[in-house]
């Protein structure tokens, strides 16, 4: 710790000059909140169209966003030091919960993802892991010399693999991949040497054919369907054909809000959840899509800036990873709907209908705000 402190000293020269603004006092980051508000509002509008203009689901989603915002504000008030301290305990708890899910979880659609606390709530422990895995790795590297040595990288990979394998066994390959990605992002941001990255990439490419045979039948189908949606136009290919038709027929400026035929004639499946961007693309066209992407870029840009200004390794790595993982969601979802990536169940952040992902995202942003507004400030 003391070495760390010394290394940080030059930085503090600049920080000493900082004054605490209103945002620091209430521990919120207003630029970030503003962009989040814009995206959520935009999302609610698209949702309103996707549910055939019924107010019910939109109000329900707004309530979920409200609750998530409260959680975010609360999490922003808590000092990052607290997150640093509880990270290992959270990790142990999360692994235990995953274990319990494996033993006692209930099955939905052939996979065990949910854990029920009798008389209370049902939840997916894998959802908690989306934040806990970046936390534990940031905690691990916080005290260590960076760039990390091979031994530390190995330990980090072990820490990533435990939850990832447990989630993949549920089976929930989509979430496992996302969490694995977020763990690897921490490694990349911590400065893992490029030769390791290159080595991993080469190994990955070489072993990819072997991996093919590990995949379950339906997962192989999804990849084959991506390569050629026409091969299965009645099943999985149907979704892709219809979403591409919705997107393509939107053109530059779209058919107009509430005027999409693909979604309103029920051609488009999952139009309120995973495939909602197709509704946006059909009704508001390329312009509408680009507006959304710009807002996402602004949001992530702010996240990256905050991570650059963070004062310690933990804050830096955690805020950076949460931001880049957010992009992974955006890219995987939009790539999937537009036929660039295989169909995996990943919602579009802050736009898709549903409360779980919103809650996790907002909690993550709460931690980012906490990191940013708890910097040591001398008036």
């Amino acid at each position: 710790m003391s070495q760390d402190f010394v290394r940080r000293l030059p930085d503090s020269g600049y920080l000493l000059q900082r004054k605490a603004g209103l945002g620091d006092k209430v521990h919120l980051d207003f630029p970030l909140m503003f962009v989040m508000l814009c995206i959520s509002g935009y999302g609610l509008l698209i949702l309103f169209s996707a549910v055939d203009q019924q107010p019910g689901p939109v109000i329900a989603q707004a309530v979920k966003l409200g609750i998530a915002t409260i959680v975010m504000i609360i999490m922003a008030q808590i000092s990052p030091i607290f997150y640093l301290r509880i990270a290992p305990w959270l990790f142990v708890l999360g692994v235990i919960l995953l274990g319990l899910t494996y033993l006692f979880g209930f099955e939905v659609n052939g996979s065990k993802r949910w854990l029920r606390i009798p008389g209370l709530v049902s939840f997916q422990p894998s959802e908690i892991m989306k934040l806990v895995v970046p936390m534990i790795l940031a905690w691990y590297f916080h005290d260590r010399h960076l760039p990390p040595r091979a031994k530390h990288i190995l330990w980090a990979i072990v820490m990533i693999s435990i939850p990832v394998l447990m989630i993949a066994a549920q089976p929930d390959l989509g979430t496992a991949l996302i969490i694995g990605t977020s763990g690897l992002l921490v490694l990349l941001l911590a400065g893992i040497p490029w030769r390791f990255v290159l080595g991993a990439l080469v190994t990955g490419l070489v072993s990819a054919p072997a991996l093919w045979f590990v995949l379950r039948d339906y997962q192989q189908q999804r990849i084959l369907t991506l390569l050629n949606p026409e091969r299965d136009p009645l099943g999985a290919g149907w979704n892709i054909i219809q979403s591409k038709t919705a997107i393509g027929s939107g053109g530059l400026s779209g058919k107009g809000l509430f005027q999409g035929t693909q979604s309103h004639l029920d051609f488009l499946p999952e139009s309120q959840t995973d495939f909602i961007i197709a509704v946006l693309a059909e009704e508001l066209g390329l312009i509408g899509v680009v507006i959304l992407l710009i807002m996402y870029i602004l949001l992530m840009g702010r996240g990256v800036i905050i991570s650059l200004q963070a004062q310690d390794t933990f804050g830096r790595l955690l805020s950076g990873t949460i931001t880049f993982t957010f992009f992974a969601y955006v890219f995987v979802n939009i790539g999937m709907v537009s036929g660039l990536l295989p169909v995996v169940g990943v919602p579009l952040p802050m736009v898709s209908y549903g409360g779980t992902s919103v809650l996790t995202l907002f909690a993550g942003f709460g931690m980012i705000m906490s990191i940013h507004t708890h910097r040591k400030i001398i008036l």
Partner: protein
Amino acid sequence: MVEPLVLKDHTSESRIYFERASLGFGLLILLTLLLVARFFYLQIVQHSVYATLSDRNRIQVQSLPPNRGLIYDRNGELIADNIPSHNLTITIERVADLEATLARIDELVGLSDAQIEGFHKRLRRRQRPFESVPVLFKLSQEEMARVSVDLYAMAGVEIEAKLVRHYPKGELMAHAVGSVRRINEKDVRRLDRVAYSGTDHVGKIGIERFYESDLLGTVGYRRVETNARGKVMKVLDSTLPVSGKDLVLYVDSSLQRVASDALGERRGAIVAIDPSTGGILAMVSKPGYDPNLFVTGIDFDTYAKLRDSIDVPLFNRAIQGQYEPGSTIKPLLGLTGLVTGVIDPEFTIEDPGWFQLPNDERLYRDWNWTKSGLGGHGVVNLQKAIYRSCNVYFYNLAVKLGIDRIHEYFEMFGFGRNTALDLPEARSGLLPSKAWKREARGFPWYPGDTVNIGIGQGDMLVTPLQLATAITVIANRGKWVAPRMLKEGSDLMYESGVVVPQDINLVPEHVWELIISSMQMVVHRGNQGFGENGTAWAYIGRDISYSMAGKSGTAQVVEIKQGEEYDEDKLDDRLRKHAWFVAFAPVDKPRIALAVLIENGGGGSKFAAPVARQVLDHYLLHGEQQLAESE
């Protein structure tokens, strides 16, 4: 906003982070541009293509159901075929007023409330827009004519021709092949949505069910362009469906016919097996039913009648009926005695007509026991005990052996489990043991239980298939061939997980031959005087031209009280004994083994043996007869 200050004055650690984060952000921008490029390609470059797809025309994907695989018997005769059937369908998107359309159909050809309800049910199960849903199945020529006249006025209503399953042999093969049924709500949840799109039927029982995945075939599809009224304007592309695999069964239709006729109106079952392959040559269960009734939907009254009939025609007695084996298992018991060394061929008993356990009042009677005490078989060795079916000998033997050894040896012959490779619906019967009795009944095993097992009574239960299988193993002198229906066309039976028992090697050659020759005497030993002939000789052995080994059996349905005689006339029809006969032939090179069961049929030798003889005659002599006639 990034301060240059941060850059200038930094430790290597945060410099690395800055490098990595900037690189990451750059990559993020690049990937976002990739997404924009993708949307640009779809929305601007390909816009007109997709706009056409979406707006001006409706592109539909229509599934093309595959033809279900055909099923043939061993001689190439069709057992299951597909024939066209015409259904009246509605595509709801094209109908302006559904109520009016249904009313009009009712006027033309009649439509019951149940049919309308069924239509709405199917409508809810529909998977895609513009999918047609059947209202009426199997239109007659007259109905088709009446509807056709008005079709132009009813948008969305069509007559669709589809191939449906047909069983040309009707009732004869019902229990041997099983049947398909219309897919119902429950099936929908179980079946693969894509594979069954466009298919209305699924194999529900028997061969049709077991080989479903091979019989089904692979669905095809075509993409068509339709105008706003839904009429197909152009077929864009199509992938043809692949028909299901054709199957060939071991069943011989003509043998099946002979077996069925031999049973006549009696309730019962016959299973005949080819000992060299295990192939099932005939599987009859009477009474039967017409499987064609189920294909396009059976009306409730007909179904209720079949279901509630006291004769249970839907029940496959050949593989699911579980009966006491009676004396048919005596040869096996004798074999067990010889192999374990408990008896030798010279071992004899003096049979007074009854048997008693020490310290037990109860009389275990021989089948020719009378109150007057004149019954019994005198001095009996194993051979005589088999061809005269002497109960007292086997009471003695069973007690000497004990249930543990009996259980061990009987298990080798496939009792107490299902050894058929492609008949998962076959029941496993019951092979009692000490452990079983404690578990199931909560009582210890009593010596009296063993006595009863000696003559195949008591707790032991077998199916006709199991007895036929055991006889096949005897015919093969211990070599196991698992029974099976399928001759060629699929490999599914090897994935069914049925464990084929091991060949029985521990029985010496001379034991097999002694047991088999005793069984041969059951049929062929004659003209020896009263009480010395084989039990079946008088009924089937006098004029037989080939060598047959057999054993009769008679299974009690009700217990005869101590001190009373069995009197057929006093008993209700359904309480009479079940008649069994098991046999194989020719003795030296067996070509067929079988088990015949006649429910409440009376004595096995008198009633079941002639049926067995007719089946064997046909199989062994019919070909020769035909040959002789053609010359």
